């Protein structure tokens, strides 16, 4: 579709871009103590973008802007998800970030980048969309610029990010050189049509996986994760482990389906280039979750622990990538939503409790179950849900992930996954133990503002509700990916 006609299918992104410009100008007109208004405007803007994106759900598959991006229900599913994650993170940030409107402007730019990431269909757009999310994330990670840890987080993020983008762009240059196209569909045709040599395609594939793997914090491209997650402002840590990661996984899935999958079936990898994608992905999944879980065991800082746990969860989701069928992708898409709520929940507890506890160490949570029971119980629910214990949402998500791989006879992978779940129980349960079983002699009750409690409930309810009634969401995920496969 040509550029002018594409605009009508591009409303959420257009609206977001316009909002960014308007909010920058509004910020210049506001007085210093009124900057929080930009946060309200940002929430409003993302909400509108959320509904505009949601309305696109029933559109048929459309190729937009001369094939630069495509609109399908898969993209819409992830657009809605990432918009939701931005809304949540703005609500989480509002109490702490009142002085700087740049924070909210940058979050909107990231959201636009994530929208583009989930619908790209061209190598050039992949790089631009990923850089849009990446570059702004570097700034956000270092947003507390007088905090040395925040600076360190930002710097490490930049260095790793630049290197991984470079590697990925190099891989793209191979793909372009081999096929002569930047459009993903055309590349697929070229790979199937020509008899390409396996080695260059394999190396290019590995390079692209490196770039995408960095974005989703996959081992061995995870070195930045612990330091960045510990040093970045807590809301940004939560956001990075949900929003950009979901967009990265969506891009990964799209790249696999459009480029690496065989066009006839779309559920098997291309055979004539022998890139051994399933085995490679399986090994990466195992390494990712094992390393994440084992490293999380000894952590004293709760943000660092959650950072390693985020790596482990990427590993779980990658398991379902290995089987490469509708069932697996549905499980990932469902899990991503569940993970968003429980992870944001855990980070919100950290964010709202840190001023009261005075520290981000796990030991500071001692006796929280008696100082503020609601928060502690909610935290316990998030921890159990992250472990994957019934009757919480995390359990359902894990069941779908494991069902997808067992159905395709990846038994070893499933067993390793279960062992990992057991390991993770140790460090998640440790937090619960500290909160409820250790107690001081005198209990100093904490008074939590109404805003904090309401937000806590809003994050808690989906985790509880999806644990008992998950049908509609799984159907939605299934339909979205089914659309992709053209059935």
């Amino acid at each position, binding site marked *: 579709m040509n550029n002018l006609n594409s605009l009508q299918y591009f409303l959420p992104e257009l609206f977001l*871009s316009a909002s960014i*410009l308007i909010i*920058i*100008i509004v*910020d*210049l007109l506001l007085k210093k103590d009124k900057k929080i208004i930009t946060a309200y405007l940002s929430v409003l803007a993302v909400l509108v973008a959320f509904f505009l994106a949601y309305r696109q759900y029933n559109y048929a598959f459309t190729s937009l802007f001369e094939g630069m991006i495509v609109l399908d229900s898969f993209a819409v599913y992830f657009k809605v998800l990432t918009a939701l994650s931005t809304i949540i993170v703005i609500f989480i940030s509002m109490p702490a970030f009142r002085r700087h409107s740049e924070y909210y402007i940058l979050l909107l730019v990231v959201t636009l980048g994530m929208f583009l990431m989930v619908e790209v269909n061209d190598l050039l757009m992949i790089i631009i969309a990923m850089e849009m999310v990446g570059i702004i994330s570097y700034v956000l990670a270092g947003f507390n610029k007088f905090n040395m840890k925040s600076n360190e987080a930002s710097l490490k993020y930049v260095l790793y990010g630049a290197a991984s983008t470079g590697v990925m762009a190099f891989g793209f240059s191979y793909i372009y050189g081999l096929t002569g196209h930047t459009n993903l569909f055309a590349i697929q045709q070229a790979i199937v049509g020509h008899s390409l040599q396996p080695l260059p395609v394999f190396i290019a594939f590995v390079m692209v996986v490196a770039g995408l793997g960095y974005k989703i914090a996959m081992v061995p491209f995870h070195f930045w994760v612990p330091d960045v997650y510990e040093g970045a402002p807590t809301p940004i840590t939560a956001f990075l482990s949900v929003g950009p990661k979901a967009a990265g996984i969506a891009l990964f899935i799209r790249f696999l389906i459009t480029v690496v999958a065989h066009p006839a079936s779309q559920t098997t990898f291309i055979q004539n280039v022998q890139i051994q994608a399933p085995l490679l992905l399986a090994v990466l999944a195992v390494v990712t979750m094992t390393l994440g879980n084992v490293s999380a065991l000894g952590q004293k800082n709760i943000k660092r622990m959650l950072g390693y746990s985020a790596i482990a969860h990427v590993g779980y989701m990658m398991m379902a990538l290995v089987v490469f069928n509708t069932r697996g992708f549905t499980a990932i898409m469902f899990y991503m939503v569940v993970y968003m709520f429980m992870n944001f929940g855990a980070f919100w507890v950290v964010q709202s409790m840190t001023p009261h506890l005075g520290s981000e160490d796990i030991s500071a949570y001692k006796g929280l179950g008696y100082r503020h029971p609601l928060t502690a119980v909610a935290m316990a629910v998030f921890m159990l849900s992250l472990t994957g214990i019934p009757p919480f949402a995390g359990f359902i998500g894990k069941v779908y992930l494991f069902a997808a791989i067992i159905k395709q006879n990846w038994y070893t992978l499933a067993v390793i996954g279960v062992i990992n779940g057991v390991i993770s129980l140790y460090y998640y349960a440790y937090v619960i133990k500290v909160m409820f079983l250790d107690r001081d002699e005198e209990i100093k009750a904490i008074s939590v503002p109404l805003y904090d409690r309401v937000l806590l409930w809003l994050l808690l309810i989906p985790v509880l509700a999806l644990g008992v009634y998950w049908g509609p969401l799984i159907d939605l995920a299934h339909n979205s990916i089914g659309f992709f496969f053209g059935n």
Partner: protein
Amino acid sequence: MTGFYIVFLFLVLGMLIVAVTLLLSRLLQPRKREKDKFIPYECGIVPEGEAWIQFNNRFYVIALIFIIFDVEVLFLFPWAVVFDTMGMVAFVEMMIFIAILLVGLAYVWAKGDLNWVKPKPRLAHLAKKKGE
């Protein structure tokens, strides 16, 4: 494309001229080694402290802003080349591009990042005394 041979020629010529001048002065100059000659030249006075000083942070901010608009200018070149064949469409497309970046300019301008010197009235009391 042959234009680049001219560029190359200029490059070689430029380097030659510099080399020849330096060589000439080297041949012609009288040479007396003195200690003072190895001191960095500072307007004829004896330099104080090290030659290496920490630069003002302002340079960095300005350079950052410069790069952003440098990239913008870069896109103007190909646009200008095809402008007469594409006409109005090209004009509108480029205006959108520039308008978005103009918001950025407005931002740095209004926030005072372009101000080189912000006089701080630290010596206000002295100024007053002088006025009396």
